[in-house]
């Protein structure tokens, strides 16, 4: 079982139960629905920015999926809620880089904090998409919100 505990680290199992950010966000500035067609896992992500439009004020998501995908959405919420958009983009890039590493090298703990627990998932090629689901949805939300000039 030592092998499997590299994938399902305690922090991941905790997040899969805590589901930080779980719940639909009222009046979001951007939403995005992302689906993993191989398993049917899905997430709908909503974000709100602050008045300046430079800080990701709130994240809310609803989703249904495996422990990895739901834990990843929870960890994402912990990291990105309240962060500046520039920082959020760095987090997304950093998380994606880690998930593409196939378990090689060291994860960027300074940037990703506890979310480096997902480094172990990157060795399981069939599960990388599970971990990325929420992040891809967030990326689309950030892009949409940034492009939306009508927000006041």
């Amino acid at each position, binding site marked *: 079982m030592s*092998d499997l505990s590299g994938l399902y680290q305690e922090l991941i199992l905790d997040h899969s139960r805590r589901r930080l950010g779980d719940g639909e966000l009222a009046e979001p500035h951007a939403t995005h629905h992302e689906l993993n067609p191989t*398993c049917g896992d899905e997430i709908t992500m909503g974000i709100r920015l602050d008045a300046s439009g430079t800080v990701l004020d709130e994240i809310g998501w609803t989703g249904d999926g*495996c422990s*990895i995908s739901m834990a990843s959405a929870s960890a994402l919420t912990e990291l990105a809620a309240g962060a500046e958009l520039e920082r959020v983009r760095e987090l997304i890039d950093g998380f994606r880089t880690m998930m593409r590493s196939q378990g090689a090298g060291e994860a960027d703990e300074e940037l990703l904090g506890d979310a480096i627990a997902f480094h172990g998932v990157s060795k399981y090629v069939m599960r990388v998409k599970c971990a990325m689901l929420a992040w891809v949805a967030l990326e689309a939300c950030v892009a949409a919100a940034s492009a939306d000039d009508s927000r006041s």
Partner: protein
Amino acid sequence: MTLDRTTTIDGLLPTDLRRDFPYLDQELNGHPLAYLDSGATAQRPIAVLDAERAYLEHANAAVHRGASTLVGTSTTAFEEARETVARFVGAGSREIVWASNATDAINMVALGMADASAGIGGPETEIFRLGAGDEIVVTEAEHHADLIPWQRLAAKTGATLRFIPVNDHGTWSIDDAASVIGPRTRLVAFGHVSNVTGFLAPAAEVVELAHRHDALVMLDACQSVPHRPVDFAELGVDFAAFSAHKMLGPTGIGVLYGREHLLDALPPARTGGSTITTVTMESASFLPAPQRFEAGTQPVSQAIALAEAVRYLDGLGMQRVHAHEEALAGLLVDETSRVAGVRLVGPPPGSPRAALVSVDVPGVHAHDVGQFLDSQGIAVRVGHHCAQPLHRRLGLRATTRASAYVYTTADEVRRFAAALAEVRGFFGVGA
């Protein structure tokens, strides 16, 4: 293949047949591999691998093209393969068309009917022409491969797609079929054995009902032909599809069965070389079946290998294969239904089913269940198994499926159930 072996797995098939499958003799994550994913793809015996290689080493040449001695040899081998496969399913060799897989075979019928509906072909295509008011009937349990082509056919022709409802087990009866099939029905398509529930459809009864309304019947036989004796002529189906790689054969080849007069009338969806009699700059006329459907270079070595897979199965005897799998099906149901906190979808215990079970572990996603089993050396399928509507109907998103075949042992089934019993504890779900 000669069968002089006396030791058996369960009194039915020889245990040493596992030696014919080198793939099975490996470790997965530090455990002996228990391969329980044959419903997705089966492993191939050495005889099948050798047959393909031997053809390529000694007999490979362009089939049905040219007139050389070499072409004679390759064409004979290719057509003998067709005859072998035809005999296996109670068909004439003109009733067997090579496809790239079963999905392709189903699409050939759907696309051919769309062509006929668009006015391609002469009066012989009348039986295939659909329009507004006509109905295509499928079940709620279909694999996407036996659903989407019919959705598309309905969209192209204005016909209506209707559904035989399934119950909370995901199964259906001839009465359910009779509630939908009627005078407007022009085609009924359904899976012979469900790849999710293992349910065996009342095929002969549906054929009788459909034919009473002059409707055509297409059978998705992917999960039946590899596992039990199937005779298409006896069942009376008009078309059927199955795949080589689920019956010990290679990938890249599937089979479309069609009654001779229907295949001769169905417009070929894909056109090109080797399908024709006369071609002018303006038009072409087509050969009789099966050649009219086999445009371009065919999967020749794969056909040779598929025929060898058929000989291997015939050597075991399909009655014995079926009996072996019935025993495993009983064990799968007994063992998994005993695991606390696991929901078994499909026919309830005591009802007949194929040797596959799909389970839901409430509180644990199928991907996580599969990952845990994988860590124990047990290979299963997780997901919706290309049957999203059925999962939705059952209130599920994904399930974990174990499927058996000729080489599956009782011990492997027990390992599956034992590992399943540990899943909820590992993920901290339930008491």
